[in-house]
């Protein structure tokens, strides 16, 4: 393989979810395409790194000081939904049902991997609550061990402040079938049952 092609394949292959084969296919596609396409891809990559940055408040991605959500005056500023990653924020935002603000932790606490609270934006969340005006913090970290531990950590850290802390519910996925649900989900659904 030529050196320049090999270099691009190597770069693509570093990306998450991209194996050697796919990397090769992407590189060959770029090779075949016109020069404009390659230039615009390169520019998009560089712009992302140079212009995009974390929102001062919630760590969502933005080109400004504040992200689109934080700067939107129609949002309900008394609620903060806490998520681990920007992709989680994007998933909730896609529902168009949540009107409050977000806080992206940029990770979850995992001592085994050497990730402590200071490697997340948990401290910034406490600062936001401390400043006042927040009535409810909704913990939407993932329902796995790290996510649960992180939720517990934040609950503890917010205890001194007058703010309602809630945790998203566990249960069956909508449109799902009982017979295909894993037993952990089924058990949580049973525990969380409600009178109708």
């Amino acid at each position, binding site marked *: 393989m030529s050196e320049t092609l090999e270099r691009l394949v190597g770069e693509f292959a570093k990306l998450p979810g991209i194996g050697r084969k796919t990397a090769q296919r992407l590189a060959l596609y770029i090779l075949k395409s016109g020069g404009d396409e390659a230039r615009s891809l390169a520019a998009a990559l560089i712009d992302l790194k140079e212009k995009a940055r974390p929102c001062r408040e919630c760590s969502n991605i933005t080109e400004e000081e504040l992200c689109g959500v934080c700067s939107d005056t129609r949002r309900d500023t008394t609620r903060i939904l806490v998520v681990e990653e920007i992709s989680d924020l994007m998933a909730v935002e896609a529902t168009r049902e949540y009107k409050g603000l977000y806080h992206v932790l940029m990770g979850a606490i995992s001592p*085994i991997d*050497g990730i402590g609270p200071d490697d997340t934006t948990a401290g910034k969340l406490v600062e936001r609550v401390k400043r006042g005006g927040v009535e409810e913090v909704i913990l939407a970290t993932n329902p796995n*061990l790290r996510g649960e*531990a992180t939720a517990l950590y934040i609950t503890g850290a917010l205890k001194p402040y007058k703010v309602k802390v809630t945790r998203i519910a566990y249960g069956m996925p909508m449109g799902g079938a009982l017979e295909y649900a894993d037993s952990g989900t089924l058990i949580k659904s049973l525990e969380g049952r409600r009178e109708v």
Partner: protein
Amino acid sequence: MFLKSLSLLSIRNYSRLDVELGPGMNLFHGGNAQGKTNLLEAVSFLASLRSFRGVKAPALLAWGAAEGMVRGEVVREQAHSSSSRRLTVGISKEGRRVTLDGKKPGSVREYLLSLKVVSFSPEDLFLVREYPAHRRRFLDRSVFHAHPSYIDVVGRCAASVKQLNAALRAGDDKVMESWEELLVPLAAEVTLRRRERVAGLGPRAAALYDSTLGSGELGLTYRSQARGEGKDELESSYRELFRKKRAEGIRRGSCQAGPQFDDLGITLSGRDMRLTASRGQGRLALLALVLADAEVYRDEQGEYPVLLLDDVASELDVRRRDALMDYVSGMGQALLTSTDETLVSGRDCRLFLVEDTGDGAAIKL
């Protein structure tokens, strides 16, 4: 439930074996080092995906073989019908691959639930004499068949203990607290389930020991740092324990509370068997424990598990041997090994002569 057929391919000293088993007693007899125990090990592996010799899957492969396989057809008799499933474990240098009726099972749990064996092997004597971890695993396996989701609780508990250990070494109090709090309900559930199991096994094992196997009062107790009746009380007990032992945990770099410190206590006439049991007593206590597990399984599932008894007769006197064989013949399927075929003389039992003539073991009817 019983194993209707068993096939081995490149396992230990078997290059190939296909054998039909009876629903009652089956005796594999023959001289020493012919491959009798290897057969039971293969069945135990098929059921639990662990070797009772404590080795990893590739160790079961025949010398020089790159791949091997254990397959069994399990028949379960329900009240009005019977069903059969084909369990297969493919073994290679990389590990194992399981299938149920030729398809990848939805989960390992589904696979593990489809065949229950209880096994006695002289190599299991450490269950009585030595490591608490073996006793906890014995209990965990026993609980699992009654509460399949328990396997996840045990897994989450172990993972949280590791995280807590790392947190104790990292030194952030608040992070330690979070992982302790996460551990509390998991630890309480593990302790509660194991303790319930011991309460179920205890009277059964005691009756077996006193009437059939030995004489004396066999006692099983579950020992835990945590105190309390129900789940709530155990949870507050663990919460307090984690808090009290945190300083020591930081000093040692690992948490000093939790169900990983629990143990199954086995006493004979009030005396701790770990310290005072003779070999013979240890053997009988282990047998009582294993048979009690089978009885409890039958109470819960309505059928006996498959019983594996490796070299069970040696070191037993004639009276106990006969009493044991009487008892076993009243249970479901049993696979036994012995150098002595008179072990089952006069009983309804299928006999298999196991012989290794130098180019691999074979079975003669």
